[in-house]
């Protein structure tokens, strides 16, 4: 433990702060917050650059790259940039900026990176299927009492708790 690191906030205080940010998003934008949507926009932009024909023909991605549409000029990508910068400011001011592969005491860096990539891949599919992630569905839809968002949230926790046993050597 580095003594230079400032402590985390109380989870309740952080929760209130995030809740007020979410409320502000409802008030200003009329939508909530979201994270995974930015990945779709970035991917659509990159795919359109690399293979315009394929992207315009792809039945999912074509909605983001249609006539006169720039997938990078989207609320989601701007918000994602904000989240990244906010995280950067937070980590720097708290002394938590550290280049490392964060892993459990018994996990190897290679395995951790592999599993992080695998987990990201599964999540990439999952977030498209569910039309959102922990931000867009669980937090935003949760606060709006949307049926699907609550079902989604329960499913997330059920799967993670259910699979935790098999991954205990990675984390504990």
């Amino acid at each position, binding site marked *: 433990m580095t003594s230079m690191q400032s402590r985390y906030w109380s989870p309740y205080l952080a929760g209130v702060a995030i809740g007020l*940010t979410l409320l502000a998003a409802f008030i*200003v*934008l009329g939508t909530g917050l979201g994270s995974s949507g930015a990945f779709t926009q970035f991917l659509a932009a990159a795919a359109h650059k690399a293979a315009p024909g394929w992207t315009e023909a792809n039945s999912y991605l074509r909605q983001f790259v249609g006539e006169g549409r720039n997938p990078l000029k989207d609320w989601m990508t701007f918000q994602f940039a904000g989240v990244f910068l906010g995280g950067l400011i937070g980590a720097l001011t708290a002394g938590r*900026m550290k280049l490392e592969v964060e892993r459990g005491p018994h996990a190897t860096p290679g395995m951790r990176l592999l*599993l*992080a990539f695998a987990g990201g891949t599964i999540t990439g599919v999952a977030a498209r299927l569910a039309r959102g992630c922990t931000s867009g569905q669980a937090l935003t839809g949760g606060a*709006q009492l949307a049926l699907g968002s609550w079902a989604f949230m329960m499913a997330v926790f059920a799967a993670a708790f259910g699979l*935790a046993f098999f991954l205990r050597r990675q984390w504990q």
Partner: protein
Amino acid sequence: MKAPLYPLGLIGEEAGFIAVFFLGLFFGFFLERAGFGSSKKLTSIFYFKDWSVLRVMFTAIVVAMIGLLYLTGIGWMDGEAVTVKETVLGAQIVGGLLLGAGFIIGGYCPGTSAVAAASGRLDAFAYIGGMFAGTFLFSAAYDWIQPLYHWGGMGVKTLPEVLGLQPGLVAAAVVLIALAAFAATEIWGNPSVESPRVWQVRLTPHSAGAALAVLLAFGLVTGYAMASRPQPVVAQSAPAPAVARPVPAAPAGAVAAPAAGPAPVAAPPGGVKKFRKGKSCS
């Protein structure tokens, strides 16, 4: 109606872009302060070691939910102009299960991976690479996945509609469940006093409980205020919004809800939420 600003045309698109950037900035900063730039901290809830994920999420949901109910309840905010995501129950349950698996395997969810990457965590960059791979796989296989993608589509559905209860009551129940979860994890899990003292305010289970009890009372009052409200204030003297939107007719609830199951208690006062095509966060 004063809000929501963008859908009512009270701010332009450029202002929206600036606002969404700063909202993200605060979101990312607060996630970092919650400790969510760390995969070890995020996943330790699944080993019953650190309940921050549950505490932060539930608190955020409760705060935003009560705020939303209150602002629409007093007529300051047009609930109809707020985008509510469609429920596609099957797809969302399967997607949720997969995302939960990706969470425990990868150590992050999409938003927290951005914060972790900004904090220098290399595994977060691997996770982000995976996110792009997964999004690509989904897009490439979209034709094949479509039946699953649309499985259980029900349009916009909220818990109050499904349960046939007033939104304020459902919200009060959510607050109660959150309080019970906080109490249970404070008693049997790790206490939050390990990370105390923010701005010299010592957060103990008691002070946090007291603050949340105030929230609950507020939620209940709001709920009943809304329940006793006969009609959403549509015809206000305030300048009409420039955005053309179907004005919810008074009996919309009766038309939209085919008497399914036990006859629901009158349509919620907020009216039946209509799904507006437009910018949605995901």
